[in-house]
């Protein structure tokens, strides 16, 4: 139990995530992918006669169960399987972020940016609202996210997924190195 409560190393977490691919296939021919659930919510709640949202979302309701599970799993891990240990960050990352204006390194997310009280600040709007918008817009435009393209797509040797994954990384590098240093200071 004590081992479970420690942070898990990559060589445990990675293969376990990889095993979700065959698990979903064998459970019922389901392709691993998360971002499609965002479209599901749109189709179920606000279809607004948009052609792309006119489909029977109920046929794919398995993935809503899957993400409900993720929320539940997050709750279980956060409340019962964790002991408060500070994140072991690379000192270089800490130094860079501190220089750029991040002050609080105690949680998994910087509390000075990602909290409800920051919602109506320029920085809060940019990081939570604008950032979330880019995630939802981009993943659907790309036809998948880290799970659907990077893990499921690459596992099944689909080259469009390799293109998409390279673009995910390229976009991330551009944001991190060229834009984020200014946005954090706002």
């Amino acid at each position, binding site marked *: 139990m004590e081992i479970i409560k420690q942070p898990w190393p*990559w060589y445990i*977490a*990675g*293969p376990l995530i*990889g*095993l979700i691919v065959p698990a979903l*296939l*064998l*459970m019922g*021919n389901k*392709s691993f992918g*998360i971002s499609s659930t*965002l479209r599901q*919510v749109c189709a179920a709640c606000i279809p607004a006669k*948009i052609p792309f*949202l006119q489909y*029977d979302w109920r046929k794919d*309701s398995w993935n809503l*169960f899957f*993400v409900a*599970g*993720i*929320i*539940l*799993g997050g709750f279980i*891990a956060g*409340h019962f399987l964790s002991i408060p240990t500070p994140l072991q*960050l*690379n000192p*270089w*990352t800490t130094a860079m972020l501190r220089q750029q204006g991040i002050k609080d390194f105690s949680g*998994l997310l*910087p509390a000075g940016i990602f*909290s*409800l009280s920051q919602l109506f600040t320029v920085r809060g709007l940019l990081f*939570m609202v604008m*950032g*979330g*918008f*880019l*995630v*939802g*817009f981009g993943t*659907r*435009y790309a036809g998948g996210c880290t799970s659907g393209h990077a*893990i499921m797509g*690459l*596992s099944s040797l*689909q080259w*469009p997924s390799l*293109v*998409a*994954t390279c673009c*995910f*990384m390229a*976009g991330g590098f*551009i*944001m991190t190195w060229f*834009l*984020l240093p200014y946005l954090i200071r706002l």
Partner: protein
Amino acid sequence: MTDSNTPRGSNQTLQNSKYLVAGVLFGIILVKSEVISWFRIQEMFRGQSFHMYGIIGSAVITGMISIFLIKRLQLKTITQEPVTIPEKKFHWGNVYGGLIFGLGWAITGACPGSLYAQLGSGFGAAAITLCSAIAGTWVYSRLREKLPH
């Protein structure tokens, strides 16, 4: 909305509950391996840690071997259907959308899976980010025909 009147009972829910269990495990892994941490994503994009590369890389290799074995051994699903994997066709959205998601991934420190797990482990901010992500998907759906693919 084609067959919204199809009867769906507890059987359907029971069928789907196995995906709930799979999701619970995935959510636990995401939290325990700190994938949901904004700081870990910053480390990754700064090339200052192997952690995230190790996780994604070993997940892909495990998935690849699994799919190879499923095909080689011609494994069937639990309801005895042959396993099929839909083909992904290239379109320019893979590039444009990929870049846009990359920007969002680095700023929020979260991919869609992480957002759900963050929400579950008690980060209220994730609720805002997730709602914005849903809004982003909606706006994409709305503009889809006008965008280059």
